[in-house]
């Protein structure tokens, strides 16, 4: 069975986590290391995908700064999105050559992980054709954006657990005029660590991984 190490980076800025992703991806592209799933919680940040439309940003940069929101252009797919506390951002850094060389299958599989996880907490979520992401009742609960280079993936998904949804008012999320929601907004109050545990379990099932959690042993 293929192996994947899960590492929780804790609270970390978008830029620092990006550098960690890049380092791991470089190694994977050279055929070294093992696949990893990184969890991280970003401080307030708005990111614009490479094909993002700046008009989907609804406030000038200065306003965002004053609101304590950082702004980044990212090399992931997708348009504009927001990350912040209460959201589980996950970066699967995988060599897809060892799984399937298929971007469609990859994105659908990520959606499946999220759908299965939400079902564990009693939330019925699904797909909307042509609109990548995971939806409950026409509202987006998880966003997906991936970058591939030599079939090694970076970036991934963001699941709103107890995100303060007001921050999404600064943007048109993913360029779509549909509402966003969170597990909490749907009445599910849950410990974020429990959600991560469920995500890890379903990630292992969907991608056929043997999952190990990284624990740093230290003197």
């Amino acid at each position: 069975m293929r192996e994947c190490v899960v590492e929780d980076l804790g609270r970390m800025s978008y830029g620092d986590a990006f550098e960690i992703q890049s380092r791991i991806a470089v190694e994977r592209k050279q055929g070294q290391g093992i696949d990893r799933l990184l969890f991280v919680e970003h401080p307030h940040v708005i990111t614009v995908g490479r094909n993002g439309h700046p008009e989907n940003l609804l406030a000038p940069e200065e306003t965002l700064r004053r609101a304590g929101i950082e702004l980044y252009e990212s090399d992931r797919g997708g348009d504009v999105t927001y990350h912040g506390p209460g959201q589980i951002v996950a970066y699967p850094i995988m060599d897809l050559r060892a799984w399937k060389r298929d971007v469609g299958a990859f994105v659908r599989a990520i959606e499946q992980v999220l759908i299965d996880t939400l079902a564990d907490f009693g939330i019925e979520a699904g797909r909307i054709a042509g609109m990548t992401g995971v939806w409950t009742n026409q509202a987006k609960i998880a966003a997906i954006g991936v970058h591939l280079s030599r079939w090694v993936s970076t970036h991934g998904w963001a699941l709103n657990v107890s995100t303060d949804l007001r921050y999404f008012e600064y943007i048109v999320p993913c360029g779509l005029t549909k509402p966003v929601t969170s597990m909490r907004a749907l009445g599910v109050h849950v410990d974020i660590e429990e959600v991560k545990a469920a995500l890890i379990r379903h990630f292992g099932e969907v991608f056929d991984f043997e999952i190990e959690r990284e624990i740093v042993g230290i003197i």
Partner: protein
Amino acid sequence: MTDVVMPQMGESIVEGTLTKWLKKPGDKVERDEPLFEISTDKVDTEIPSPAAGTLGELLVQEGQTVQVNAIVARISENGAAEGTRGDSRVSAPVVQAPPPPPPQPAAAAPPAPPPAPAVVESPKEPSAPLSPLVRRMARENNIDLSKVAGTGAGGRITKEDLESFLKQPASAAPAPPPPVSAPSVSVPAVSVPAVPIGQAQPTARARVEAMSNMRIKIAEHMVMSKRISAHVTTVHRVDMTRVAKMRAKHKDDFAARYGMSLTFLPFVARAAVEALSAFPIVNASIDGTNIIYHNEINLGIAVALNNGNGLIVPVIRHADEKNVLGLQRAIVDLASRARARQLKPDEIQGGTFSITNFGSFGSVFATPIINQPQVAILGVGTVEKVPVVVDDAIAIRSQCYLALTFDHRLIDGALGDQFTAKVKSVLENWSEEVL
């Protein structure tokens, strides 16, 4: 000529949008060098060049969506001039660059801060993509990116480009006023340029940088261990002459046969394993008011990560089943994989006793902190030749200090010394063959 096509990115994918050319017509490209980017279904992909040569005409422009396998450009092999095959259209690229970029980014007066920065960044930005790091550096140092020459792929501006730009004399960079009220303290300042730019630079007395995740864990563990255990360190002087001779005798053979050098550490590890078998309480942990005696001897070996970037303690499982060769092999393997961040989680768990080899950094002796939930750790000082008195004569011997830090809650002073004396005795009377 090699055709460059829109690649097949998956069974259900029939088309893709070309989002960015990373090369211009007329550019030389290497095989496998990133050539363009495509977007399919929220996935952006960098596509490498299928061949080395010169990029000819672009048949698909940025933003266009085309079917899989559609030809998006052609590459002519090295040397072959464009147009060799009577391709009449190709003459343009080399001479006349694509639509002239913004009219005059002249070096005139410093631009007033852009009126309404509704867009992501200042409009004068170069067309090649920028990494978040570069963006952040540019913002924090008020660099006008249009004045920086990119040396990365596709003319990308790299961190190094910015660093060398910052080192240039100040004249070229009329820094616009810094952004009003930069928000958070959490943004780590990127390295302060070595050469001060003008005199406007604030006198930086300190630099704030967020801890890495590993550093946070190390910090928590160290304090937690000091709080939990009653640390006592005892130091014994050990004559390593016998071991040094044994090592000298086999060193070359060992390296030739196994491709790694023979160090002192596996000898100390072997001696520690003997002592742990003789004093099982040193191989124990505390659980409330219970003592847990571990049946396995799993030896943690502290490994310093490169440039002081942390510590990790991979574990040699069943160390009591290994001889010097087996221990040396395990140490080399775990240390190199620890530095490459390739350890698996179970390789850093379940240790029952640890060894830290600060002697390799020149330390004579130190007082290590216990790796919880263990109850002792052995520190190995540097091995050096010293004059000592033997039978009332002065002799030259190889010697080192062994420092045992133990948890005085569980291990009495006498026992700590008996244990260390046992390690010392095994080393001084070394009898096991190495090869």
